[in-house]
């Protein structure tokens, strides 16, 4: 009779389907990091002087900083920042400068990312459509539905285009939520970021479709440093999704992104991530080092919701956070993090309550298997002015097998005696009784584990947009849920 421990490898060691490499001609800047490289990146992108100055300022700050070591990440290697290529882009086909390269088209097709609008326009897919900004290594290669969105005044384009076409917006908001010197990796990103997505929703506009960014690392020896800026103006709303994959390689590749979200008065932003970077092999070789800073700022009455499903990366260091500055603003953080083999994740959130009657809710579901380490790390701070503010946090850990670790490191700081903070955490495992019950009903062990894990994560998964929820469920090794129930 198989027991839970024997079953897990079969369930979780699925093949990494996205691990292929696209054979395409690319241009690179030389390996290493110095002022010259930064000037080269900036000039390759035809940037204005103020942005070059921004980068150089960030670089000079970064040089004085040291990498943070407080994460529960014993396998995070010492990174040689001179051994990384900071810019790689597919060469433009001079015959068809306006169209997406067929090899890239094929790549994104294979990944199931709709980088063309044709299908939808022809009515093949009657479903509600999603606008996609596809980023391949250091550049955005395609952004769909821009015209449809532009009719509503919505700007959705690559970060580079935004710099050219809407410099006033970029200049106003860039680094307004994540300051240049916020942390080591944010400073690095500010110095070398290459591309990413930009989104602006004008006052009072409800975005008619979901927006998404898809990040693909392809070239070896490179890092990806994307920058995303989302601005939801007063009373507007948008649902934003982010996905990512990379080839299987024995080397570690660095991904150090910065995402900034500005949620103006009474606006509503839902930000969802399904993170499926290459996690490394069963022996812990290779995989992406995912060291990411994501933060949103909520003005009066604004709402920001983070939902993340983290299944990939060798190392995850990520704390999507919200500054609840405006009175009555609200935020949620819903997270599922699955680690297996030798993966390590240190992830959570910060909820900084500054305004009156602000509310936040944290639901974190960690799942650890194999030899992995999975930590929730969070901060809830009730500032002096957070009168009547409330936070509720629940952090659950599911341990699968006896060689993994599951940890919870919350910090609660309360400076206001009219605010209330509640935190609870539990650990559990899949019981033999649950497994047997499923088996007796004809559900095999692998499916049963998938079903139980999926049930455990349900509270988070059901908050994802439909397309994403299906993808996330598959990633959690489940193929049962979906159209019914």
């Amino acid at each position, binding site marked *: 009779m198989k027991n839970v421990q024997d079953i897990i490898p079969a369930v979780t060691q699925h093949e990494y389907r996205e691990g292929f490499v696209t054979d395409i001609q690319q241009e690179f800047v030389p390996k290493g990091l110095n002022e010259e490289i930064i000037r080269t990146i900036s000039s390759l992108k035809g940037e204005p002087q103020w942005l070059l100055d921004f980068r150089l300022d960030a670089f000079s700050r970064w040089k004085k900083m040291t990498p943070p070591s407080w994460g529960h990440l014993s396998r995070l290697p010492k990174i040689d920042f001179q051994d990384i290529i900071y810019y790689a882009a597919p060469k433009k086909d001079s015959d068809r400068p306006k169209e997406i390269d067929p090899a890239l088209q094929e790549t994104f097709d294979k990944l199931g990312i709709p980088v063309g609008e044709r299908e939808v326009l022809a009515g093949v897919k009657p479903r509600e459509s999603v606008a996609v900004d596809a980023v391949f290594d250091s550049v955005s290669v395609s952004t769909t539905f821009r015209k449809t969105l532009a009719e509503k005044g919505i700007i959705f384009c690559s970060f580079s285009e935004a710099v050219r076409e809407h410099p006033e917006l970029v200049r106003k908001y860039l680094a307004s939520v994540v300051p240049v010197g916020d942390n080591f990796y944010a400073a690095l990103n500010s110095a070398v970021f290459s591309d990413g997505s930009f989104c602006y929703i004008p006052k009072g506009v409800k975005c008619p479709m979901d927006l998404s960014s898809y990040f693909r690392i392809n070239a070896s020896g490179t890092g990806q440093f994307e920058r995303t800026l989302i601005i939801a103006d007063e009373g507007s709303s948008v649902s934003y999704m982010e996905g990512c994959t990379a080839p299987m390689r024995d080397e570690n590749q660095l991904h150090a992104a910065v995402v900034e979200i500005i949620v103006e008065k009474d606006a509503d932003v839902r930000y969802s991530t399904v993170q499926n970077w290459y996690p490394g092999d069963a022996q812990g070789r290779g995989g992406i080092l995912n060291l990411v800073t994501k933060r949103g700022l909520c003005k009066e009455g604004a709402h920001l919701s983070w939902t993340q499903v983290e299944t990939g990366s060798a190392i995850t260091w990520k704390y999507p956070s919200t500054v609840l500055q405006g009175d009555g603003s609200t935020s949620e953080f819903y997270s599922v993090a699955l680690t297996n083999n030798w993966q390590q994740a240190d992830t959570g959130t910060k909820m900084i309550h500054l305004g009156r009657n602000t509310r936040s809710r944290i639901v974190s579901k960690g799942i650890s298997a194999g030899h992995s380490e999975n930590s929730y790390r969070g901060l809830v701070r009730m500032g002096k002015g957070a009168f009547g503010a409330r936070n509720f946090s629940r952090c659950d850990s599911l341990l699968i097998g006896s060689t*993994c670790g599951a940890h919870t490191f919350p910090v609660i*700081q309360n400076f206001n005696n009219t605010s209330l903070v*509640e*935190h*609870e955490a539990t650990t559990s*495992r899949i019981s033999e009784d649950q497994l047997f019950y499923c088996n007796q009903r004809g559900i095999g062990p692998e499916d049963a584990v998938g079903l139980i894990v999926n049930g455990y994560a349900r509270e988070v998964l059901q908050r994802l947009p439909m397309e994403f929820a299906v993808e996330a469920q598959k990633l959690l090794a489940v193929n049962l849920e979906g159209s019914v129930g």
Partner: protein
Amino acid sequence: MDRVYRVGIDEVPKRLTLKEAEELRLVFVVMPGISADVPFDISIEREGVKLEIYGLYLCPRSEQVNFRVRVRHLVGGSTSTQLFKGIAGGSARVGFDGLIYIAPDAQKTKAFQENHTLLLSDSALIDSRPQLEIYADDVECSHGATTGSLNPEELFYMRSRGIPEELARRIQIHSFISPVLKYLPEEYRRQILARL
């Protein structure tokens, strides 16, 4: 057996190792007016231990109290329960940094930790860090923490029944700390209630 330590008055051990299957209850009490750091590290190295740790901190003025508690389950089959409760008023600063560590293979461990603080003034501060570090799967483990003020509805209810506000507050504080208070000797309890 019970051991009660008055922080700042009695000698408090910094480190304990439990090598016998015993039932042990430790109670830490920080009286009003006392500021202290309380580092305490206890290792359970034997199955069958039943450990209870209670902490009570009363910081109504400008006290600074920092607990740093480590409960390490190095072998399985033991139980630990922690309950730390207290109040912070005036300009008091209270820190609670508690960790439950469960070693690899320390199966069938049960470990629980709770920390609840009442903030009684607008310049008091609480910094609570209830942490779990778990390396075994067949365990039962949880922690909970809350910070907040006296429940205004309870207060109003009592006042509407004719209980003066000051007394109502004292009743509320008393009921809040009583789960820990009950493990103190009668004499300490009287002292505490007199000074609240």
